[in-house]
């Protein structure tokens, strides 16, 4: 009677295991707070601001969130990103609901504001408190480098004591959720608004700088003064020193008054250095250098022993890049102007330090090839500058920004460099309508800044087209053709829209662990692979019912709403070949594939390495741009020459 034993055994197993319906399997049951450094962090602060926090030991309230549908613990540095992220459209879709949220508890800490106005802990200890039990002080005078600080306490009394010193009001978790925080608006319109504002600033800066061409001529070198040095010495402020055609070896000069130095034209007037240090320096506001060429610049790049008055991390960068030998070196020279200048340099071309409103236009810088031997064609540190209508060939980076917030780089040409535009610790920039070719990366934004706009650029034949890190940034209307990798989506809470991604080895690479970007209305056509992903969850690349145009995506639009009815998985086993193989289309509609895919878009936060577009576009979003890009691509392929 083996049946009796079998049935009994099965019944017993089923009965015992059914106990699992009684025990709690809630994944969030009592997760303990983890080391904050081990979380995936979203921050109110840029990396530049974070460096300040580290260096000055500032207090920034933190949060740890355990989501039901996201396997990693999400950390927040500063609480405004916590509140805005929880409210973001599509957030729940990617992350599920928060099972528990803990915030820093300052009840047992002594807090004070330093001379810089930032909040510090002067004694005591912090702990963690669940948000439901926390009391938050908002609208106080307490600040961190990222802005006004929301400070949580586990005890109301402690929160009220804090308001005695810092002002503000005490609210609960619900009150904090309702508190108005700046929420970034990730739309094309928002990107265009920003671009318009920044173009307007750039136009104004350019117009202002061009006035420096109108200064009266006071000294003509060779006529009124024997040397450039003598001319600078002799010329009164706000006049023009003219350098007639010829080579001038009288260099390594420093201008310390607002002068305009004008040559007879590129290749007519040459300033020739002796291979040591910078050729021309301007250490006063509103200096202009126009219509000349420079060569003979020194080899020195890093200045490791230089004394720099800055936070240590900042000083380190300045010594590394900011004091290299240059064709023109501007320091504390706000509103200066470099135009119609050619520079041939083994190191930096134009270096701009602590000088807002510098305008560089119609300049050509030839750097070293290969790029490893060269340096920065233009570099701005601690300055907002405008670089436009210029050409950069060879060298390390075309435009390098360090703490160059608000800088505008537009309508330039970059070729044969490491990076065309390279942003470090720099926010609120506009990089627009530039062309880059044969670079490592056409436009690269590093170090988690915020609110950068990269628009209308054209990158070809590079290892990576455009790679933007940071948050609340806008990568729109760019064209990347024939690169190893077109776009790198490495940012968070940012918008990637209306880009044309054609004929790259990999169209788009998704590299962030935290899936908060909006990727929509891009045209991805003719790439060897649509998308590659690094470790991380499945990203949904559809925004408000609108996805991207994936060339060759299988499926039909039966309701004529402009979107293919079938979700597209550019990383899927079958869909990834949709562009190259018509047979993939046949397989793609098989029930087996449908069965396999049916749940791919669900629980994206718990899956790995994938992209799903739930509403692929039927037609290209920018058909003319796609056609032009395909044409460029064909020409390049045929002639081997960059169009």
């Amino acid at each position, binding site marked *: 009677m083996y049946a009796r034993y079998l049935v009994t055994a099965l019944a017993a197993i089923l009965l015992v295991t059914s106990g*699992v319906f009684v025990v709690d*399997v809630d994944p969030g049951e009592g*997760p303990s707070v*983890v080391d904050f450094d081990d979380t995936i962090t979203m921050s109110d602060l840029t990396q530049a601001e974070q460096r300040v926090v580290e260096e000055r030991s500032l207090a920034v309230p933190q949060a740890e969130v355990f989501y039901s549908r996201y396997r*990693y*613990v999400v950390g927040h540095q500063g609480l405004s990103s916590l509140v805005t992220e929880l409210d973001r459209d599509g957030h729940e879709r990617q992350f599920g609901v928060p099972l528990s949220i803990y915030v820093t508890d300052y009840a047992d800490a002594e807090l004070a504001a330093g001379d810089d106005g930032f909040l510090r802990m002067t004694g005591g200890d912090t702990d963690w408190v669940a948000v439901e039990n926390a009391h938050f002080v908002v609208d106080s005078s307490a600040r961190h480098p990222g802005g006004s600080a929301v400070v949580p306490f586990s005890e109301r009394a402690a929160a009220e004591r804090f308001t005695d010193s810092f002002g503000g009001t005490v609210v609960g978790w619900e009150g904090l959720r309702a508190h108005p925080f700046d929420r970034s608006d990730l739309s094309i319109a928002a990107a265009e608004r920003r671009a318009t504002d920044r173009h307007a600033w750039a136009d104004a800066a350019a117009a202002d700088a061009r006035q420096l061409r109108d200064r009266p001529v006071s000294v003509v070198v060779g006529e009124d003064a024997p040397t450039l040095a003598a001319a600078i010495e002799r010329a009164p402020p706000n006049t023009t020193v003219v350098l007639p055609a010829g080579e001038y070896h009288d260099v390594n000069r420093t201008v310390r008054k607002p002068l305009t130095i004008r040559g007879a034209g590129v290749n007519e007037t040459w300033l020739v250095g002796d291979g040591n240090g910078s050729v021309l320096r301007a250490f006063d506001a509103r200096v202009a250098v126009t219509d000349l060429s420079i060569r003979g610049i020194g080899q020195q790049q890093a200045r490791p022993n230089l004394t720099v008055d800055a936070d240590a991390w900042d000083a380190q960068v300045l010594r590394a890049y900011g004091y290299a030998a240059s064709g023109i070196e501007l320091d504390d020279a706000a509103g200066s102007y470099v135009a119609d200048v050619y520079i041939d340099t083994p190191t930096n071309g134009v270096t701009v330090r602590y000088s807002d409103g510098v305008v560089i236009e119609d300049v050509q810088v030839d750097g070293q090839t290969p790029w490893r031997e060269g340096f920065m064609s233009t570099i701005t540190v601690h300055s907002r500058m405008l670089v436009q209508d210029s050409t950069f060939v060879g060298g390390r980076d075309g435009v390098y920004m360090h703490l160059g917030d608000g800088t505008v780089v537009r309508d330039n040409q970059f070729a044969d460099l490491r990076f065309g535009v390279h942003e470090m610790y720099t926010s609120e920039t506009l990089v627009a309508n530039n062309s880059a070719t044969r670079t490592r990366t056409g436009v690269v934004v590093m170090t988690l800044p915020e609110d950068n706009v990269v628009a209308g650029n054209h990158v070809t034949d590079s290892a990576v087209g455009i790679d933007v890190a940071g948050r609340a940034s806008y990568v729109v209307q760019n064209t990347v053709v024939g690169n190893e990798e077109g776009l790198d989506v490495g940012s968070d809470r940012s918008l990637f829209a209306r880009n044309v991604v054609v004929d790259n080895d990999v169209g788009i690479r998704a590299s962030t662990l935290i899936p908060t970007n909006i990727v929509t209305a891009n045209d991805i056509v003719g790439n060897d692979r649509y998308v590659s992903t690094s470790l991380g969850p499945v990203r949904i690349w559809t925004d408000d019912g609108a996805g991207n145009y994936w060339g060759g995506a299988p499926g039909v639009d039966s309701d004529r709403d402009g979107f293919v009815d079938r979700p597209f998985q550019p990383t899927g*086993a079958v869909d990834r070949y949709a562009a190259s193989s018509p047979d993939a289309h046949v397989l793609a509609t098989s029930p087996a594939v449908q069965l396999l895919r049916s749940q791919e878009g669900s629980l994206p936060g718990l899956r790995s390495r994938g992209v799903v577009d739930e509403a692929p576009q039927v037609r290209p979003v920018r058909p003319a741009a796609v056609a032009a890009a395909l044409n460029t691509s064909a020409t390049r392929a045929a002639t081997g020459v960059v169009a």
Partner: protein
Amino acid sequence: MNGETDDLFAVVERELTIVARTPAYIATAVGFAAIVWWLAFASSLTGYVPLVADLLTPVEVLVPLLAVAFGYRAIQADAASKELDVLRTYPLRPRTYVVGVFVGRATAVLSLVFVTLLVAGLFVPLFGPPANPVIATHGGDGPFGTYLRFVLLATLYAAVVLGAVVAVSTVTARGRTAIAAAVGVFVLLTVGLDLGLVAALSSGTVGPDGLRYLLALSPNSAFRGLTLALSIQTVEAATLPLSAVLANVVGLVLWLVGSLVLAALTVWSDPPADRWRVVETLDAAAAGAPDSSAATPDEPTEPAAAESADASTDSSEDRPTGPGGAEGAPED
């Protein structure tokens, strides 16, 4: 009297032995396991909850298929081989027979579903991609318990579908329609009932509010609802009242019990007592005159009602073994 349990397990063992000795069943079992494992392997295996989400739809199709394969001939084969007529003359109650057949087949099917899915769950720790080691993970991908819940729900679902298939196998036992009916029940369970709900919803017969409890009427919707509520624990499912979850459980149990009751009532029934009965002895006087027995008009042991005209109406409902019908009239 032989215990009913003994009879039950005799039938159970007979069914289990048949399953074990029929290569087609073994092949079906291997195929089922292979498909489930392949699907599991092809899913991202990042956690138990995603695996449940990935396997939910395939299981909704594959489990009924398995149940149909294992169940559609269960009783029909005994009818076709006329063993059912032999069984009927033994002291075996119809319900014992039906439950025995069901338990026997269910032991095979449920074990298969349970073990196959359990093994698929092991793929997560065995073959799942490593989490980023630098970054802290927590239980967001769900503990094994959530997966075990899914496995148990799938096992229950298999039992329910098997019950329905056994019932259909019983009802159609006398014809050649067993396979057609089995396909019918498969289509009904996997899409038919849900399509009916969709139709009711789109025609306005049922409002979205009424949907909650109507879903419990469709076994696969009930199974899906339970999985979403208890295993995947989706955000939407978390808002459902306990009554909705219970409705799904009740729906599944009703299907199972209803199927078995239907099968037990249909499989066979003894004739009514005034038409056919067993007594201890017949009148010994009759033995003395065997030659005249052919015309015996009135057996003293027979009830007076034997000749009453109204006895032609079938009044067998009061018999414990249920009403007649399966044998009663020609089907056409």
